[in-house]
């Protein structure tokens, strides 16, 4: 069951105050700025309960279906950055497609505000310039503002092939922001970048989210990336994926990769990934 909640509506069990805020949020949905107006921080923007999902094995369509997710439970609060790490093939992409409403779960409950997907590949359209790619069907004026706010000024009319990998991901991220949705699902957005560019992108993303706060579910296989960026890290098991550990990252930002606390948390997450105990 996939419940695509109206903006501002979180779950059936709401505080009476939410109804009033809903009107503000509805207006916000029409005009993208002020994305999470009226969303109380103690409510979750996405709540996944005991969700399972299987699909036919592409190599053996008549055989047993592949269980991608088996009873996943996780939640992210408003403006929280939840990182989901897991080994390849553990159903991370399936999880994001479920949250975005591109697939429906076989079992379990899934409640979330409208979500937008940022796929692994930038998928910029070669026939449009950077600004048009970011805006697509939407207002170019707002795209222009975001370009200058987020350090993309001067690249508005560059074609995708003229941009570096990092710049292309930035344009793709601005496109995601401009959807006006309050929940961003990022699917290994920096997976294809080299280490230096990736570190730059981490700083840039933190800055962008400070300027344009959103709830983010970030799927990655890079544990360090998760610890540097996230408020909370959920560790998935190998397929069929289920949450085997959750780590709160209560560290001030900006975080350094070499900070001993970051290193310690990274080690804990890695141990959970390897199937060990989380100390």
């Amino acid at each position, binding site marked *: 069951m996939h419940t695509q909640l109206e903006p501002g509506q979180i779950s059936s069990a709401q505080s009476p105050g939410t109804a009033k805020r809903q009107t503000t949020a509805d207006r916000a949905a029409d005009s993208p700025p002020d994305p999470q107006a009226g969303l109380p921080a103690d409510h979750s923007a996405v709540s996944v309960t005991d969700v399972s999902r299987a699909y036919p094995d592409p190599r053996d369509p008549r055989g047993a279906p592949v269980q991608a997710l088996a009873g996943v439970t996780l939640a992210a609060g408003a403006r929280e950055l939840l990182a989901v790490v897991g080994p390849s093939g553990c159903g991370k992409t399936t999880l994001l*497609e479920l949250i*975005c*409403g*591109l697939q429906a779960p076989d079992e379990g409950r899934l409640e979330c505000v409208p*979500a*937008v*997907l940022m*796929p692994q*590949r930038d*998928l910029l*359209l*070669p*026939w*449009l310039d950077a600004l048009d790619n970011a805006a*697509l*069907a939407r207002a170019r004026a707002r795209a222009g503002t975001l370009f200058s706010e987020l350090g993309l000024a001067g690249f508005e009319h560059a*074609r995708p*092939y003229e941009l570096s990998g990092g710049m292309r991901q930035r344009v793709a991220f601005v*496109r995601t922001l401009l*959807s006006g949705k309050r929940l961003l*699902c990022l699917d290994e957005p920096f997976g294809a970048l080299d280490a230096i560019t990736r570190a730059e992108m981490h700083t840039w993303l933190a800055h962008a989210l400070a300027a344009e706060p959103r709830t983010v579910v970030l799927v990655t296989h890079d544990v360090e990336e998760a610890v540097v960026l996230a408020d909370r890290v959920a560790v998935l098991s190998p397929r069929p994926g289920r949450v085997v550990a959750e780590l709160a990252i209560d560290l001030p930002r900006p975080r350094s990769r070499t900070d001993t606390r970051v290193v310690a948390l990274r080690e804990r997450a890695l141990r959970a990934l390897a199937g060990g105990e989380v100390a």
Partner: protein
Amino acid sequence: MRGRPMSARGSAHRLLPPLVLVLVLVGAWEAYVELGGVDSFVLPAPHEVAVSLWQNAGFLAQNLKPTAEEVVLGIALALLVGFGLAVAIHLSPPLRRAIYPLAVGSQAIPIAVIAVLLIFWWGFGILPKLAVITLICFFPVLVTTVDGLASVDPDELKLLRTLDASRWQAFRFAELPAAIPAAISGARIALTVAVIGAYIAESQTATTGAYAGLGHEIDADLTALQTSRAYAAAFVLFLFAIACFYTLALVERRLAPWAYRSRGEVR
């Protein structure tokens, strides 16, 4: 670098291979006719064709005009029909099932027979000739355009869905631009058969007056044993087809510069 204007030396380097090939072929032909003692009614030597071309330049130019008109208008119509049908097929599975088999079947119709029937029906004007050319040319456009429309990455369409793009917007932003270079590629394939179509249609119109087109003229010359002028006319068609092919490449470059860029150079 690719994409920048070529220097004089660069373009000389690019023109050299085709020039050498043409010279070798023409030389072999000339030698074969001279040394083999072939009758020039059967196979005129290249220099005879060149002389005929020179002497009949005005006559050939007058005859090129109607043929060029038929080919250019026919290709334009074929692009329109092929593209339109491809979009219909792409957007509607029932239309795909209805249209595709008929479109394939239409290519099995003996075109010379259809040409005669159409001329009985519509007379000796340009209309039956356009119909013949469009009938044989829409098909490559249709097939390449259908493939172009379907070539969009499924992940791109998923992304557009989460961006709340409507079906129309997905078509307008992702599918339509992908189909443009595909349709033009189809037109470039169609071009070669368009010239053959023009010849077939014109050869059936033997009763009309002067300047009935190069196709008609080739037919008449062969009957009158004016073989070298028929070869000269065929040479004009040959140059015309090459010019059209590269014109379409330039059109593609204007309409779909991204496709041109990824391929490097005009093919």
